[in-house]
Each structure stands twice: as C-alpha cells, then as structure tokens.
C-alpha cells in the first residue's frame, strides 16, 4: 500500500481577500512616484478604489504557493487523462522560451529574425509530420484550430460558388468542440453512428453524404481509442460526394511518424501543440491549435504566417493571402507556446518523434492487457489500443452499484489522477485511459495495482469508493448548489 504513492494534498487555505488588511502592501513592487501634473478629468475617474487584496509580498507568495500544493499535476502525479496527452513537459522548453529577449519582443516591432526563424522551422516540421502543404500557427487552442479549419472549408466551397454545402458530418463519439465549432461557423451538424468495432458506420456515412456535405470531422485514432480501419474508404466516399475531410488532431500523439493525416486523405488538420508537442496545459491553457492544410485550402489559411524571402523571414498578411479567412488573434496567436513546441521538437528530432507514438502505444497496450488480465472489461477487446483505450465498468456498476465516478475519485486517494470519465458518452461507465510515452513501467504497474485494490474495495468496503476522495482538501462538491446558488465572486462583508 505504501508503494502506491498515496499522498494527501495540503488541507485548506483562506481566500487572499481574507488575508487582506488595509494599509498593507508589497512596497518594492510599486513604481517610483513620478513628478508631474498629468491627471484624468474628474468625471472620468473612479470614485472608490477597486476591490483588490492588500497583502505583503510574502503573504502573496505563500498563499499562491500553498494553492499550487492543492493541485495534482504531471510534475507531481501520474495523470492518465484520456484524450488529453498529459506527458512530461520538458523544463528546457519553458526555460529557453522565457529568455528575456523573447519575453521582451513587442509584437508590432520590427520582424524579429531570431524568433521568426524558430517559427518558420516549426511550420516546416509540422508540415512534414502531418503530410500537409501549409501550416498556420495562429489558432490559440484546439477549438480555435477547429474553427479555422471549418471556416477554411466554408471559404473553399464559397470560392467555388458551391453555396449549399453547409453540413458537417461528425461521428457520435466526437469531442463536443466538433459540433460546437460547426455551429459557430454557421454550419449544421449531422451525427452518424459507429459500428461494433468502433469504426465509422459506412452505410450511415453513405446515406449522410450529399450535395449539402461540407466536410466530415474525424479523429483518427478515434475518441474510442482505436484506429479507423476504413479511413481510405471514408475519404473516398466524402471526396466523391464533394466534401472535404477534417482531421481533429486531439489524438495525433498515437500516430507520429507512423502514418500522416495528409497521406490518409485529410484536407485540413488542427494540432493541439499542448498535447502532442508537450507544451503545458497550465491548469486550462494556454494551448495552441496550429492548422495544416492540403493544396486545396492553402489560399485560405489564417494569417499571419511566417514567410521567407531569401535569408529574411517576414509575416505574411492579407496582402499575401487575399483569400485568407482572416485573423483569429490580436497579434500572432500564442507565440510563446509555439516556441515551447519548437524547442520540444528540436530536443526529440526525427528519432525521438517516432518513439513518441511507439512508446505511447506500448504503454497503452501494456496497461490495457494488465487491466484485462485483472478482470476489467475493455470496451473494444478485439482491437489494439492506440495511445489510449476505454475500460467500461458496466459489470461492476451492475454488481456493486459502483460508478466510474466513484473509481475516479478513489484513484485520487491512491495518488493517481483519474482517467477521463463519461467520455465518450456512448460507452457506459467508461474510463478513457491515456498513459503517454513518458511514464515508466513501474508507474503503469502502480496504477494497475491500485485498480486491483479498488476492485477488492468494491466488494469488501464499497463506502471507501462511494465516499471518496478521503485525502483531498475537500470531499465531493455539491455541483447542484454551485449552479443554483451562484457564488462567483467574493464580496466584502457589508
């Protein structure tokens, strides 16, 4: 049991406002008083100071350090969150992206040749890895990359005066951002089922395509954790119907160097650099959702893009790409995140890039087999795991009234972050488990041992699960109350 790495997180920390005392401050952070008479006209000034804490520097440092200790993270815990690719974020990527010259670059200053050289090479490397013809780094997260992709598809059909193509086909198992993105681009969504093996139902696809088809959005391997066998056939059906193929890069980690989306027939892809290329998730961003396109969509890429003229790099804008879907951010997207991805790719190089998929697959298939041997049920037992796989707890739910949520919360007590739960929605009581390539065999074994212990607890002491977690700063939270009695901001007592 001690080997399982159970560690309780730190207990409680008051709100920063509760530490606040008028008159206290972090004085060395104040700028010097500047002599002069400049002032805001009285009627445009604020009457009372904004509600902000008044604390010392140490109080702030201690408070936020303590809050950090109330988190699980990759640096502290195994984090097999399916579909999220929680691999090690190399420290070098952060250290060298935060060199003072890079941090000081004003986005509207002269085109920074050192920085742009990195971005240009990043575009080229991503293009090579995905088998596409052009890359834009501007989308700021996966969902914005999806938006850019679907907006390009719409622009392509419009440019051909093919105006009725506004339907986007998505498999039922698709990530929620796919249909949400289609709607944001003014498209309608048609969902099609998957067959018993987790592949797209070809009959349903044939029935769904037609003159209104703008595109199909797919992840491959799919969110079911399996490689889409019939991808070539899917591509042929959609292309013959006049639609395009969109690749959601959420699961790109599974196939790096093994198969390229461009070679599978995809016309556009977004990559989550914060997954596959190991930029940090930061507790919810910033991500980066670079897009790659085949020849047909090249003119529509979002701007800016880095171009090269002789030895000089420059930003390409509206003038260079008059058919571009336009700008998605105030400047050039999450530049510093892209720089981290660049550093990661240089560290790995061509040898390391192929190993990503190999060892992600090795870890996933090993963990799947061990869990199956221990009696857990795989959702797709006849398929190879890709970089992730689904375990369904429907038998455990029937036998012991234990839910996937109970298991997820109990894993926290064992010092293991929970896998993704209840996604994809069509597999009952599911855990989507993605160990990633940077975990050692011992960590996978530890996870498996914990799952075996939890299975025993289901039978002997189910309350251990239903009341879990026991070692976190809080017990399970009342989400209904959170949504009904909205408390979204602290207010000083009247």
């Amino acid at each position, binding site marked *: 049991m001690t080997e399982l790495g159970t560690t309780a*997180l730190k207990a409680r920390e008051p709100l920063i406002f509760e530490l606040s005392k008028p008159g206290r*401050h*972090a004085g060395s*952070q104040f700028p010097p008083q*500047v002599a002069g008479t400049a002032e805001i*006209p009285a009627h445009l000034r*604020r009457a009372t*100071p*904004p509600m*902000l804490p008044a604390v010392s520097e140490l109080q702030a*440092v201690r408070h*936020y350090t303590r809050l*950090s200790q*109330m988190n699980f993270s*990759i640096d*502290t815990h195994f984090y097999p969150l399916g579909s999220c690719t929680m691999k090690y974020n190399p420290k070098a990527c952060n250290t060298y992206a935060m060199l003072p010259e*890079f941090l*000081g670059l004003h986005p*509207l*200053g*002269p085109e920074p040749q*050192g920085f742009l*050289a990195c971005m240009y090479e990043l575009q080229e*490397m991503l293009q090579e890895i995905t088998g596409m013809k052009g890359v834009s780094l501007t989308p*700021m*997260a996966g*969902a*914005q990359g999806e938006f850019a992709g679907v*907006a390009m598809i719409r622009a392509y059909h419009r440019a051909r005066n093919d105006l009725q193509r506004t339907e986007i086909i998505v498999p039922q198992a698709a990530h*929620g*951002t796919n249909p949400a*993105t289609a*709607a*944001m681009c003014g498209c309608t969504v048609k969902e099609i089922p998957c067959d018993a093996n987790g592949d797209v139902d070809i009959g349903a696809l044939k029935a769904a395509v037609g003159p209104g088809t703008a595109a199909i959005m797919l992840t491959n391997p799919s969110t079911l954790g399996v490689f889409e*066998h019939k991808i070539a056939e899917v591509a042929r059906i959609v292309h013959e119907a006049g639609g395009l193929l969109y690749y959601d890069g959420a699961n790109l980690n599974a196939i790096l160097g093994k*198969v390229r989306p461009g070679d599978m027939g995809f016309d556009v892809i977004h990559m989550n650099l914060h997954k596959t290329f190991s930029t940090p998730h*930061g*507790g919810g*961003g*910033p991500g980066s959702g670079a897009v790659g396109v085949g020849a047909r969509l090249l003119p529509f890429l979002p701007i800016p893009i880095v171009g090269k003229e002789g030895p000089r790099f420059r930003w390409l804008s509206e003038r260079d790409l008059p058919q571009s879907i336009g700008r998605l951010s*105030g400047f*050039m*997207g999450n*530049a510093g*995140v892209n720089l981290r991805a660049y550093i990661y790719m*240089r*560290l790995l*190089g*061509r040898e*390391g890039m192929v190993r990503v998929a190999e060892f992600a697959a090795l870890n996933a298939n090993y963990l799947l087999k061990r869990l199956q041997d221990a009696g857990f049920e795989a959702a797709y037992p006849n398929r190879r795991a890709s970089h992730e796989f689904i375990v369904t707890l429907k038998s455990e739910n029937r036998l012991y009234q234990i839910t996937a949520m109970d298991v*997820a919360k109990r894993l926290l007590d064992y010092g293991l*972050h*929970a896998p993704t739960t209840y996604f994809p929605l069509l597999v009952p009581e599911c855990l989507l488990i993605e160990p990633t*390539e*940077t975990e050692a*065999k011992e960590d996978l074994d530890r996870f498996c041992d914990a799952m075996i212990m939890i299975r025993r607890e289901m039978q002997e002491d189910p309350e251990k699960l239903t009341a879990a977690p026991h070692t976190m*700063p809080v*017990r399970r939270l*009342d989400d209904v109350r*959170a949504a009904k009695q909205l408390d979204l901001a602290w207010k000083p007592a009247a």
Partner: protein
Amino acid sequence: MAFIPHTGDDIAQMLEVIGVRAIDDLFDEIPAALRAGALALPPAMGEMEVGRLLTERAAIDGRPLNFIGAGAYEHHIPAPVWAIATRGEFYSAYTPYQAEASQGTLQLIYEYQSMMCGLTGMEVSNASLYDGASALAEACLMAVRANRASNSRRILLPRAVNPTYGQVARTIAGNQDIVLEHVDYDRASGRTLLESVESRAGEDITALVVQQPNFFGCLAEVDALTDWAHRHKILLIAVVNPVSLALLKPPGQWGGGVDGRLGADIVCGEGQPLGVPLSAGGPYFGFMATRMQYVRQMPGRIVGRTVDTEGRPGFSLTLQAREQHIRRSKATSNICTNQGLMVTAATIYLSLLGSEGLARVAQASLQRTADLVAALSRIKGVTVAFSAPRFHEAVLLLDRPAAPVLAALARRGILGGLDLADRFPELGHALLVCATETKLDADIDSYADALAEIMNAARAAA
C-alpha cells in the same frame, strides 16, 4: 532516449505481457499502404545544444528600448509572478475537471473572477478567453444572444476601437451573419462622439462597442454613449485596459441616466498588462465580465464556490450546461481550453500590486506618456494629433512619412511607436506612441534626442 524511461528489459517484459514480438506490431491495424516513410526532420539535440541555439536566436532579436503599445503594454512584472506561475503544480496541471484534486487552480480562478469584478465594477466574470481581440468577437456573439429586443445582428464598431479587434471579430462572428458597422471618430479630439451615433437612433441595432481608452489612447465621454445605447435598447460592450481601471470609472458605473440602468452590459479586454510579458504577441488572455442577468449567455469556463459533502467550502466549474462538452452544437461557444496560466500570473500580479500599487502603475504610465508627448512635440515637425484627454498612449503627427523615421530609430535600438499609415491613412504621417512606468527620464531623453537628430537630418537632406 529523450524523455522515454523504458529499459531494454522493460520493453521485453511489456511486449511479452501484450503478446506481440515487436513494438511495430502494435501498429498492425494501420493499412500498410498508408504507413509513413522516414520523416525529414532535423536530428535530435541535447538540452545544452538547444539552449545554445535558442540563446543565439534570442541575441539576434536583442532588447530594444520600446515605446510601442497599441494593445500590448510593457509593464514591470514582479519576480514572484512567474516564479510561482511556472511551478509544476500550476504549469503542468490540466483543466480542473477533477475538482477535489484541483482546488488550488479553482480557488485561484475564483479569486481572479472576484478581482476582475472589482476592477470592472461588474457582477460576474468568466475564467478567461484567448485574448482581447477574440474576447470582443465572443462579446459580439454574446450580445446577439442576450439582446432579445433586437433581431438585426448589427453591431456598431467605432473606428477608434483597435482595428485588429474588428478584423478578428469579423473572422469569428462573420460566419454567423453578424454585421459590424463602422462609426467614425472626431478628427479634432480623436474620440467617438455622441453626435456620430445619434444619427443611428431608431434603427434596429444589437450592440454598441466603446473602447476606453480607445486605440489612440483618448478618453471618450462614456456616460453619454452608454445612456444613448440604453435609451435605444442597445447593449453596451465596453473594451477596457485593466491597468487603466485603477484610475478610470469602471464600466459597471458608466451612464445610469436611463431608467436607472447603470453600467456597460458586457465588458471585455486584453489582460496582458496584468503581469504577462509581451512575448511576441502571446500567450496573453482575454477577460470578460457581465451582469448576473446575462451569466448564462456568457462563453467560457466559470468557477463557483459551493460546499462539499461535509459542508466545507470548496470550488468547482459551474454553469457547464452552457459549454460545448455538454451542449455540443447548442453551446454558447466552442471554447474549451482557455488561458489558465496567464490568469494565474494576473491573479498573483493583482495581489502583489493591490489597488494602491495598480493606481501607482497607472498614474506613472499616464505621467510618463505626458512627459514623452511633451518632449517629442517640442521637436520641429512633430505635433500632437488629438485634443481629448489621454491615458498612456498618444498619436503624434510627423511632417514626413513615419516608416523611414522608425527604421532609423530602430537602428539606434529604439522602437519609436506604431506607424498608422496603413490603418488610418487619413491621418497623414501618424505615429502611435506609448510610455509606461518602465520608462525613465533618461529613456525619454534618448528617444527625443534621437528623433530630433533623425528629423533634422532628414530635413537637411531634403
């Protein structure tokens, strides 16, 4: 092998458990015809070599003396901000879906939301959007959902609003048939005047955007514009600089002369000035706040305070029925990942500065820009474009094209401002300059001396 922990024995044992002979067998479901050949990528580098490469590249770009603002502002960033934000527990955590194991991030976001409500004077804030420009796009989409009195999807977007924000809003909102219509600015004062919008009274308009301070750094009569909008059942979207709010009337208190309807309806903006480095344009973060009345129309994640099964307070993501993972194609937005780590930095920044420190930063920026404008406008051939009161930016007019002047300044290591020739050709040779608290008297003197020399030399050569 970089970051791969497997030993030869590990691999052999794992393959045996799986029941395959080689790792490549795990890819046997991929059709052979589709398998990739060798990738044309550069070879792997060690950390030392990468460090050297990046250090060399960084040195090419150097560290010029910067007087550009235009939506990205150079402020001092206290050392604790990034020392704490880059702690692995913040840096390498995921979105806080497992609330019990993410109380640190969740509590921090709740504190952030509280601080943004304090700064903006609004009732609720979300947990961030991507950046200021895309936040305006989301605000336009939200206004269409929230303003049930309007069916037109027409939004008035003054030209004095950052023009890039308008471009981004068109890219993002344009596919939903939302029309952004320009309102001109007053050439003398540099502001959007009440007279310019009054001619639109009686039309079906969904929202009016007001940026304060505007792209030129000028301060508008926001009370009159807000009341005009509310009188005509138009929602008011405020775009604001959070540092300026230490001094300026918060959008939550704009207007108030129409049926007691006080304040802007949606407030958004660029959060970068709050402890986020310039970093070539990103990552930054967008913020958004609104009235409680519209909270269910707001995009993005929101954290709420609730209690656990033992009645102790705790924090969780709430109102998730608005979001894509629940509502799919009916969601308020497709946004999923936002800019969490930037919010972490901003929250630490605001805690260190407090209202007193932030006011000192804002006041020093205001004064430094006044000093800069005074010093530069003493130079022959340089005049001030607009008469309106300013915050920390100003438009200067030169008697010759700005581009060669800026290039000459850049050769001396000075970024002298943003050339407005492409964005606002009607202004002639216009230059947008900015000075924050980071600029000292000596910096302003260096700029003024260099500009005087360059202008004089150009005049002599002509």
